[in-house]
């Protein structure tokens, strides 16, 4: 833990100074931590229902950085990365659930089991993910906002802080993104 915390701090500083490579190195570290925390929560049944994506992301942040002084930009980078990871995790799991129906075996308790909602939504989630990718081509920021809000559970204000825009702007962008996605998915499903 101690090592990776120093590592994460260092990588965040590098990322801030424009080293995009740092992001690639950060992803597995963050991913590992997200899984670890979720597993911990799961072991303790009583905690299971308090496990929400936003809690997970913030706790991963606190653990990985050991509350060392990281400026807000570093923190925003981290949260944005974690949000993308949450999306990836949730979508991958939804895909897996789709295929599980075709008879694949059951994993040991995984992060995905801990944080995914009912299998009934898996189809919707996969479709949403695809639609989000199309949205990103039109407006990357809107797609990112959906990721932060829906997959990482952030409030408008939190998402605004990560993206460096006002909560008002988030609200406005969110409304259109939501309408667009609603329209896209209702036509296609």
């Amino acid at each position, binding site marked *: 833990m101690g090592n990776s915390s120093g590592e994460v701090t260092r990588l965040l500083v590098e990322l801030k100074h424009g080293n995009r490579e740092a992001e690639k190195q950060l992803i597995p570290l963050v991913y590992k931590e997200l899984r670890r925390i979720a597993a911990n929560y799961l072991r303790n049944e009583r905690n299971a229902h308090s496990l929400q994506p936003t809690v997970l992301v913030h706790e991963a942040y606190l653990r990985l950085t050991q509350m060392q002084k*990281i400026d807000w930009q570093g923190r925003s980078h981290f949260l944005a990365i974690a949000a993308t990871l949450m999306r990836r995790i949730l979508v991958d799991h939804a895909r897996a659930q789709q295929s599980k129906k075709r008879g694949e075996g059951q994993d040991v308790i995984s992060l995905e089991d801990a944080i995914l909602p*009912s299998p009934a*939504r898996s189809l919707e*989630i996969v479709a949403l993910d695809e639609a989000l990718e199309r949205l990103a*081509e*039109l407006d990357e920021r809107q797609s990112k906002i959906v990721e932060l809000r829906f997959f990482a559970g952030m409030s408008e204000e939190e998402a605004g802080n990560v993206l460096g825009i006002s909560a008002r702007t988030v609200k406005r962008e969110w409304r259109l993104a939501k*309408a667009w996605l609603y*329209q896209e998915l209702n036509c296609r499903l």
Partner: protein
Amino acid sequence: MDQQRWKRIKDIFNAALEVPLSERHRFVRTASDGDLELESEILRLLQADEHAGSYLESPLVPADVSSQPESSPSLIQPRDVLCQRFRIDRLIGEGGMGHVFDAWDTVLRVRVALKTIRPEIADHPESLARFRQEVLTARSLSHPNICRTFDLERETRVLDPLKGTLQTIVFLTMEFLEGETLAERISQAGALAQDEAIAIAIQIASALSCAHDHGIVHGDIKPANVMLVRRGGAGSSPKRAPINDLRVVITDFGLARVDPLFKSHEFSSLTRSMLPGGTLAYMAPEQLEGSAISSATDIYAFGLVLFEMTTGQRAFASTNLLEGMAQRLRRSTALSSVHLSAIPAPWRNAIEGCLRSKPAERFRNTDEVISALQGRRSGFLPAVRGPFARWLAALKRPGWQLSVAAGLLAIALTLFAASLRLYQSRADSKVIPGSLIYLPGVKNQTGEKPLDHLTELIESGLAQSAQVNLLSQGRAGDILEQMKRNPANTLDAPTAREVAMRAGAVRVIFITVNGKDGNYTLDVDIQQPDPASPERYREHWTRSFLWQSSVAANAQGAIPADLLSGIRKASDWIRHEAGESSNDIARLNVPPESVTTASWPALEDYGDGEKLVRAGERENSITMLQHAVANDPDFALAWGRLGDILLSLHRDEEGYKAYDKALDAGQKSRLTRKEEDRIRGMRAVDTADYQLAVDAFHDYTVYYPNDYIGWIYPLRPLRMLGRDSEAVSNLRRALDLNPSGEFANYGLAEEFILLGQNDEARNWADGHLRSGHPELADRIEIALDLLNGQYDHAAKLAADSQAVAGPIQRSYGYRIQASLAADRGNYRQAIEYLDHGLAEDKQENRAERFWKLLDRAYLEIKIGDFDNCLRDVRAALDASTSPWTIATADTVLGAAYVASRPQYQESIRRELARMDRMLEESKGRGAIFEFAKLRTEGELLLAEGNPRAAVEAFRRAALKDAPVESREYLGRALRTLAASEKNSGDSGNLEQALEAYSVTALRPELIWCDSGNYLPGFYADQLQSYVELAQALGIKDSRAAAAEEKLAKLRNRLNSRNQLSGSFKAATKLQGEQKWQI
């Protein structure tokens, strides 16, 4: 589709959302400009937007969470956000209606109590409709002793996505109150002391009287619905609160009457567990019978509350509830004489007068109850009153003829009463002093553009009223946004009435201008909104004002005199109708053209400027206001507003000039009394003329005691004058008028610290700031930590606070962090914080970055980096030449001079000389200019090797300086003087220096409450100088010992931390090099 097209869709989509639903289609068609594909895409999106509802609104959460609620007692959990607006913080109680939560309204940024409504009511359409009606009614009550109800909202949630079950949560939001209920108080304390009970009774009576005047009956008055809120520190027990510090608030207005439980015919079907036992105990006979209730019902319950306060017992104990009910229904005297014998006579009379079985025989109103309580009425009132009633009573003897006569008479009486009520309401357009009124924009039906701007002219007259306060357009805009209406649109009457009702305004003034060439009317319609529905008004008063001069001919020139006189008459009439005395109207009544402008174009620019301010576009509004004053250079109000905005953007010099123009006595147009006092006061605060400022705001409060601005603005002057108790009572007045004001709440917490009431400060911050303004609560906690020597905790808190702060708070947060690090001698780290802050400021182009430059310059002295120190001072002075900046630069350069070698000393001297020249024209411009001038002269004299003259200059500077401010400069000069005369054997200078340093060294509270105004590490430096001087003088008193201990604590802890010790050593070494030769 490509990004560019998407951008276009986005723009039109967003704009369309601002347009009313009915006009959207047309709007989109026009905006799409013939591009049919674009048009249909946007229309599809708008339709999707309407249907999307809560789609994607709840984040993807684990299965465990979504399956949980079924078994859980409440559907709502902390951290939930309802209606995308109310964030749940914690559960605070469970009542008959449902659960009550402490919640945060993210739109209006206030703490609210959120009360969920039991599904039995919420799912019952008829009950819900009645409930909504009652809430609307209750919302119209605006009284300090009545809990404000805000809104009834609903949210539909998916309970189980698999089964598709939905759950609708209906909830009420209302004012958040912290304290205990009267029921709790009585159960803990037993019978209350007479004076306490009377104080509580008076406030309950005042609330009931207001409600009854509005025709609203509470229907469930009981000790559990009476909250005792302590005005001071929320966390402490109300028991210790002086009686006059207690705010008594009646809750649940309008709720009792709609609960289907109270409909008597439904009693039978209720299970016992649902019976509200506590409430039955307070029901009046007519309520128990299911008959109509009236204000007399509340009087009855009030009597039971009085009984309980004075005896500590319930009149009808719940163990004996049925018997009590039977007793009341038998219509015998409610209470036996045994019950009453122990009660003092006035109380007995008051209680008996309330508890008469027949509603008509009880006290008519709460004033009578209070009079009886205070013994102003001997015995209780006669059962039958008034000549008519007495006659009626005389007629009511057995015999049918007489009862026919009585029947006819009763009809006559009813008619009489009805006409009397009508007469009273017709005559009484008056409002309580301090009431809020709302003036939506003047509607111009003439088609002549210049007449679009009459609103500002009418406002100028109404704003001078001592009787009523105008609802600000900014607040009205917020409310419209909350109602999801576009503030830019013209309001229809129901919308305007709803805005008024939501804001608590008791009157709406509709003004329409009609006519053309040479014949105009200004139709004024004062409406009292009907609390039951914004669709109607309850009463209204109208009048028309005429004028003849044609506007069209004058569109570019002067506003016709008879129009102005019409406007003035209209505003006088409105004020008169509101109940303002003719005397006040005459006294506070500068004509509209004199307080605004007589020029159409200037008025138009001013109106546009105000609109831009509302929209948050300050830079653009400056341009507009500059146009306004170019069109009419005598437009004092526009100059004043320009000054406000410039100062808010840190353009001090221009701001002061604009203020000076506004206050210039030679102006043709004068400011209103209100504006003049405000600007004079603000100008005085900004130039450190604190006594003048206090006087100006005092004047303001004398004329406008109901406007909180006059109470809150003198906070800083009072603090600087050391008049903290006065500041506290002012802030309390401000909070009475505007309880959620964050500035007043924060200021009060700081004042508690300055007064040494640290627990109070903490409680206040936690109670009033924590949930809405955590960063302000953190600042209070940091200051308290520092005072208690909890340096590590303070630093951690500052870092945590910084991690979640918004950009503006973060910018300030860097200075706090730098200050904490520097006080502990960790200068390099402090510089690092400022580097971060400066980088961000630069990116955001923040004007106030010069403070950080001076902070950093001061720290660079500590690490011996004089090149950068000088560079930063120069950069700061390039950014700001205000006397405040110069005086701070004086402190930095003074310290640099002492610490540096000769090659830098010459550069420092030259810089000081440059600053001195900047202040050449400072005479007569205010205390801060003269202070900065004397400071700079003194520093120059020191740098020129003339400490004696420097001490003289500084002594004069100290006379201009605020009493509580640091006298470091004087101490430093005296030390230098002592060093130059070290052989004289006279220790007088050193003793005086010690005294000068003691101002801040012994009173760190001020520095830590106001860290933004001190250089980082300044406190530790003062402490160090004080300790050194005390040692040199051989003083070993308790003050010196305490200072030494504090310094050791600040610095010693440092030694134990390895990573910091390097810079600490460097710092001590440098300080060793200082040239003090004591």
